[in-house]
């Protein structure tokens, strides 16, 4: 075990290397470029025995990874924003084809106007593609999420998309623990799919499927996604036992007696924890719920964590224009009709859109606004110039 100071991009590349990925294809795009560079270094230096495919677009990246995965290889890539959007149709294909691909999205607001900066609008837009969605708070978590991602993906045969906040994680250095590869090998055995492309035993894959067959295939996918909740919990527990770090599908922080629970995902959670500690030190009952899994949505954990809260404030770093933040919508629909957790005010705050800093002072304002009983049916834009 060694501890290295590195940024989020390096941590992601290390995660892929430690997972012994066999094929990686990538197209560089800010703020993900560091991952591609680091992976290329690993492959060139022989530290990672993978085939590195230079691709002409993100669409080709995903297409080649789909083919490589079908042939039985463990595959990895990373992208951002417009690149992720360019992959969109193939994200559906990868999930429908039940391929355990793991991808990191270093998020970045969708243009136009043209921008490089952080928000989650790119990744929440891929919510319904059938991938597992994991949101990471810091660099160690990103590295661990990749290793866990393969563990889960290869058990349920669904792809995993891991979110890293652009700039806040990708370019921020933190100490990251690199565990011994032998330990990781024990946790993550080589990938051996039940079905793969094999000239010795040819199969037709994903041929034309009529209405008499398609619906059950979707239902099978649905079952796998449902099952992944259990698999993800188990994988995280096992990881904790071996490496001493586990994250849960959600993390409830000081929620049990909280009057107001803040809910968020990604790098902003770190700031929120500081603020909660600050308020708690003054005796104010503020809690925090960090959501790691957007898909499958951990409804049970969320309802449990929010059961005792009198008020919930969801802070989204993304906006579904015309409705509000996606996490806000998800939390509201999870709570609706649930035992005990229903019918409490769930406020939707939009903060940090397009990379604007969310400071402790911004959170103060959010708490202050929440306490003023604002309307619950529309999102509240934080620190908007009006």
């Amino acid at each position, binding site marked *: 075990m060694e501890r290295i100071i590195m940024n989020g991009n390096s941590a992601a590349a290390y995660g892929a290397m430690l997972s012994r990925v066999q094929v990686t294809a990538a197209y560089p795009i800010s703020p993900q470029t560091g991952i591609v560079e680091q992976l290329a270094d690993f492959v060139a230096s022989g530290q990672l025995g993978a085939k590195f495919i230079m691709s002409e677009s993100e669409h080709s990246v995903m297409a080649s990874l789909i083919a490589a995965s079908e042939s039985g290889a463990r595959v990895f890539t990373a992208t951002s924003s417009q690149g992720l959007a360019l992959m969109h149709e193939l994200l559906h294909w990868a999930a429908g084809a039940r391929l355990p691909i793991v991808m990191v999205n270093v998020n970045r607001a969708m243009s136009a106007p043209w921008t490089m900066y952080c928000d989650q609008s790119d990744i929440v837009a891929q919510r319904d593609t059938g991938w597992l969605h994991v949101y990471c708070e810091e660099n160690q978590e990103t590295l661990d999420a990749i290793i866990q991602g393969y563990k889960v993906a290869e058990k349920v045969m669904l792809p995993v998309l891991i979110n890293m906040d652009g700039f806040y994680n990708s370019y921020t250095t933190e100490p990251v623990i690199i565990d011994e590869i032998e330990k990781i090998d024990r946790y993550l055995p080589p990938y051996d799919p039940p*079905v793969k492309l094999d000239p010795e035993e040819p199969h037709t894959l994903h*041929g034309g499927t009529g209405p008499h067959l398609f619906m059950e295939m979707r239902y099978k996918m649905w079952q796998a996604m449902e099952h992944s909740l259990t698999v993800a919990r188990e994988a995280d527990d096992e990881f904790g036992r071996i490496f001493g770090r586990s994250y849960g599908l959600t993390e409830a922080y000081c929620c049990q007696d909280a009057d107001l629970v803040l809910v968020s995902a990604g790098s902003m959670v770190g700031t929120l924890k500081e603020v909660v500690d600050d308020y708690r030190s003054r005796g104010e009952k503020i809690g925090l719920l960090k959501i790691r899994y957007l898909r499958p949505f951990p409804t049970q954990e969320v309802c449990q964590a929010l059961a005792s809260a009198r008020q919930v404030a969801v802070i989204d770093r993304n906006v579904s224009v015309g409705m509000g933040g996606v996490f806000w919508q998800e939390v509201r629909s999870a709570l609706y009709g649930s035992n005990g957790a229903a019918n409490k005010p769930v406020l939707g705050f939009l903060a940090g859109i397009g990379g604007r800093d969310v400071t402790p002072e911004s959170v103060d304002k959010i708490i202050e606004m929440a306490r003023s009983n604002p309307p619950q049916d529309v999102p509240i834009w934080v620190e908007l110039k009006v």
Partner: protein
Amino acid sequence: MRKDDKFQIQRPTAKRIQSQQPIVLEKLDDYPYKSVAMGSTRSNLTGLWRYWRPYYQTKRAPCDAHCPIGNHVVDFIQTLIDGHWEKAANILRGENPLPAITGRICHRPCEINCNRHQYDERIAIHSIETVLAEFKSEALNFPPAEQPRAVAVVGSGPAELSFAHFMASLHHQVTIFEAEEVLASSLRHGPRARHLAAGVLDAEIERIVSARIKVRYNQKLDRDVTLQELERDYDAIFGVVEMPEHLSLIIPDKGTTENENQAKSFDPLLAGGAQNEPVKTPLRVSEAIGYAKWAALLLDSEWRGLNPQDTLAHIQVGGNNRIVSAMKYLALLKGHTIQRSEQVVSYDMLHLEFLDQPAPSVKPSLVDQAQSLLTTSFVSRDDIQYVIQEAGRCFSCGRCNNCDNCWIYCPDAAIAREKGHYQIDYDYCKGCTLCAAVCPRGVISIIEEEKWSE
């Protein structure tokens, strides 16, 4: 989870594929976890959708159809391209007993009608023929006649030599009565004799005569031998014997006791009540050879108890009843079915846009080489090179030369290719007829499915 039954699928085994049994998924547990084929689409006989049925049918190229001798020009050219020179020579000599002569002095109706003429320039078929004539070849091996007949051939021009050749090949005893001291004096002194280099003619005659034909020199009709003597001693007399400058085939009527010695002119088609016009000489060399061959084959068929009219229908080439094929006659005698259609492939029937880079026209220097062929008696390495190039330009009209277009383009992979043969799997051919559209040489025909069985 790896051991979980959810990931177990029925793998498509060869047995399952061959059985063509459809896979039925009745309940969720029957489904695979991902959309992988569990059986084969072979259970879906898409060939049932077919309206048009494509099928391979070898046809006649215009060179074949216009050759008075009935040569299979495309056959010997394509066989030569495949590197089988002796086999190609067999195809040539099977139909034409004098290829070294015709290659040099024929009026070349094959080339006049060559489809490539409309594209750039005709194939120099005569050069190919001249070179091929130098290769070793084997005569057609006809089944023996039940009762070999004695045949007299008077004179030794191309027609007489051709008749003698085919009659001898058909196992009859042939005697040539030649007025002079050498055979084929018409070719030696005729207008085109200068094209026949010394030795070429003698070699060709030797091949025909060899040990199987008796030759009596200095036997001029009406001077040294009389027609009555021939009619008495022979079952058939061929040559310019009855009318001056006209070829006749005389069959002495020995079957009736009343007119024992009365001969009659015989046109094998007379039995069918057709025309009986003697053939006027001099003929063009290929026409002479072709007419004599026609007479010989039909006379033999009469002697074998076949109906000449039916025989002619079977052995004619390109739909022309004055042109016959010895190889088709051989097949008929052996009871082989002949798959070939005699439909002539016109230029419009070719799909040249799908040719894989047609070979360029011949370079002028090589054309000179072609000219030199006519006056020399030997074949050089340059000649061979030239002939290979020239043969490579052949469109192979109506004859498959394994270009693979059909096999490559078939969108249903319903064409199998094995050892140079293609086979359409009609269980899965939907009848799009793309194969016919991409066949550069018009080999693939189409027909409405419901008319196929007729």
